[in-house]
């Protein structure tokens, strides 16, 4: 059993993955390594190739080139055996319009080789999902929950989740995060694709960032922390001098009574102190979007 990058402990090990659709190149030499027991974030803007990668890992699409191993097997040739050991939540959940949510959960669970009825029921309760409704009557968020319950109720080693919280409300998102932490505690492995940095930050041990089909960054959250700047803007009674000199505070812009800046986590206390000394009347802070992050990343290197 030759692992492509010589990393036999990796649950997912991909080197040089290439996939084209007609003339459009979706993946262009992608590398990805996910270790056993970790929650791995798979970040990238829309159209970066996240879903294509997941579909190749599932054997739904065939790679044009590249070496890969999933749970020690070949995703294309050993698809059926591998699928007994993994579960997948597609990004765009399509339910059969006339089947109830409960029927879909049980069907997909059994097709995977069985599901834990106790876990199924507790997940239904946790996600406040009514399993008796027909597929077509669920909202987007509830369709997502059906797919999540179907995947999470199975006792599998690996979870492949494609933007799993898209459409969930913040309370459900919280439930999801708690559950993923429990999964991590059980020693299971999760590959979670997302385009929101905060979600990945809250959940993941390691992160791979891709853009236009290639990896631009991979590492632990701590290693990537320098990328995660928070955008702060505030209205002040009087703007103090020297904000730009504070450690960890970048890109300070002053427009009359209003300031904005990008701040590392370590620079936050000093900035907050300075702002409250300046008499804050309004304050917003937001994590930067991925695109901003990429732009900054490329500008810095």
């Amino acid at each position, binding site marked *: 059993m030759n692992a492509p990058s010589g990393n036999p402990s990796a649950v997912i090990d991909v080197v040089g993955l290439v996939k084209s659709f007609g003339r459009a190149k979706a993946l262009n030499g992608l590398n990805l390594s996910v270790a056993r027991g970790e929650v791995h974030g798979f970040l990238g803007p829309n159209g970066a190739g996240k879903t294509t990668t997941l579909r190749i890992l599932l054997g739904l*699409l065939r790679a044009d080139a590249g070496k890969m191993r999933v749970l020690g097997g070949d995703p294309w040739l050993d698809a*059926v055996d591998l699928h007994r050991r993994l579960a997948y939540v597609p990004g765009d959940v399509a339910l059969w319009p006339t089947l109830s949510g409960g029927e879909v959960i049980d069907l997909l669970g059994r097709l995977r080789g069985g599901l834990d009825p106790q876990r199924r029921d507790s997940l239904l309760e946790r996600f406040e999902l009514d399993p008796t409704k027909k597929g077509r009557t669920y909202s987007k968020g509830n369709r997502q929950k059906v797919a999540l319950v179907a995947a999470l109720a199975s006792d599998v080693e690996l979870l492949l989740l494609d933007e799993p919280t898209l459409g969930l409300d913040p309370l459900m998102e919280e439930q999801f995060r708690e559950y993923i932490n429990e999964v991590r505690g059980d020693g299971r492995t999760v590959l979670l694709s997302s385009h929101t940095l905060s979600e990945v930050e809250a959940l993941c041990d390691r992160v791979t960032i891709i853009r236009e089909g290639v990896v631009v960054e991979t590492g632990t959250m701590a290693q990537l922390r320098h990328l995660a700047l928070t955008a702060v803007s505030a209205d002040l009674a009087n703007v103090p001098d020297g904000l730009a000199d504070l450690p960890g505070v970048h890109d300070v812009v002053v427009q009359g009574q209003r300031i904005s800046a990008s701040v590392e986590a370590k620079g936050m206390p000093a900035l907050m102190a300075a702002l409250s000394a300046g008499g804050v009347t309004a304050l917003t802070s937001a994590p930067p979007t991925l695109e901003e992050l990429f732009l900054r990343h490329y500008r810095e290197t």
Partner: protein
Amino acid sequence: MNSDLTGTTVLVRLALRRDRLLIPIWIGLSAAMVWFSASATVDLYPTSASRIEAANMINSTASLVALYGRIYDPTSLGALSMTKMTAVYASLVSILMVMLVVRHTRAEEEAGRLELVGSGVVGRAAPMTAALLVVGGASCVLGLLAAAGLLAAGLPVIGSLVFGAGWAATGLCFSAVAAVAAQVTTGSRAANGLGFTVIALAYGARAIGDLAEEGPGWLSWLSPIGWNQQVRAFAGDRWSVLVLPLAATALLMPVAFILRRRRDLGSGLLRDRPGPAAGALSSPVGLAWRLQRPLLVAWTAGSAVMAFLMGSIANNVVGLLDSPAMKDIIQQLGGKQGLTDAFLAAVLGLVSTIIAAYGISAVGRLRTEESAGHAESVLATATPRIGWAASHWLLALAGVAWLMLVAGVATGMGHALAIGEPGQVLPITVAALARIPAAWVMVSLVVALWGVWPHATGLGWGAYAAFIVVGEFGQLWGVPQWVMDLSPFSHSPVLPGPHAELAGMVWLAVIAGAFIAVGSVAFRHRDLAG
């Protein structure tokens, strides 16, 4: 009120753009059928005496009256030539109009596209108004073309116009029915089903009404299909009856708009009933069966009734065939056995062609499941690709075989009851079963297309239409024999009768197997396609 209709023009153009092929093809084919029926009847019944005999024959055969209705003027060439067009084809036209209205109203809403449209500068009543304008327009154009076809075949002017107006009014009436149905249900399949049920009830009511007595029974007067018969084109030309379908349209359309106004986007009058909290489905075959079952149940009922009626008229039909031209046709279709056997063989050939359409639509699930993303969910589990695909094509093949069995037994029982010989059931059933492989070839052709080139799965319907047209008109047009031989339906054994060639059946089964193998292997090696 005006703002409710804002955007209608744009939506009409959108609908016409989406249906730029569908509507012209359907309307053109329907009008061509009218023209063809009319001109063929002129050739088949050249003398007034032969027409009167044929018309009296139909009027005195209960099952023919139930199927087609009465001919109100036995001397009229037009009335005789439009026997099938007045009830049966008017029902088909109605089915088309229901499908079109639902396609542009409830189906759009269910798919969420209406939400996208509705958030633009579009009035609340605009989508349905646009759909009704398009479908109403299609009905009127179809009526005009049908009238033109009848005129071209040399039938009287007034009768031709009345007939066309009858079709147009029937189409309008069922467009309005569909508009109401689309407000009642939340799913487009259910809305179509409701519309079709109304058509079936209208058809059934007039069948009973027509049988009830000489002249119009009151049940026929409750039915839009019955109204179309009572217009009596070429047999009295009663324009005034057209008031009934038009009045029904004028009543139903406001009802649809009021219902629309009172409900939210996405909801219907009939609430979706909750389903089970836990499911019993546990295999791909179980899932495929669950998805295909409603269609198969409907087809089983329809096939049984149609086949029974056909079987029960077989014996009487011989009397219809005094014209030598008609005898020729039946013998060509059915071989050189006794005329009743020949007619039964022709009926079974027709039945196998129709049931092949079930097979094509059932196996088409492979493509719709794939493009809807359902296949992705299933194939991400421990379900092998071949197993998933087989669950659908196996059920489609089994469904075709089952429907042929039902049709064979029903035809046999109809014939056996008519002539009082129970021994007829078995040979006719066997004859029907011998037609299964031809229909299987159509199913397996779709599997091959889908496996090799998923986006071309719909070409199966094109091939099907081509085989039917070539089979129906090939000899008339002088199409070369090798082209006619491409159609699987031309290779089925001609049964019942003593001189059946069974080799064709075996070859058809082999070809079906080969197509399925090609499709399965190709699917095993390709990407899942969106």
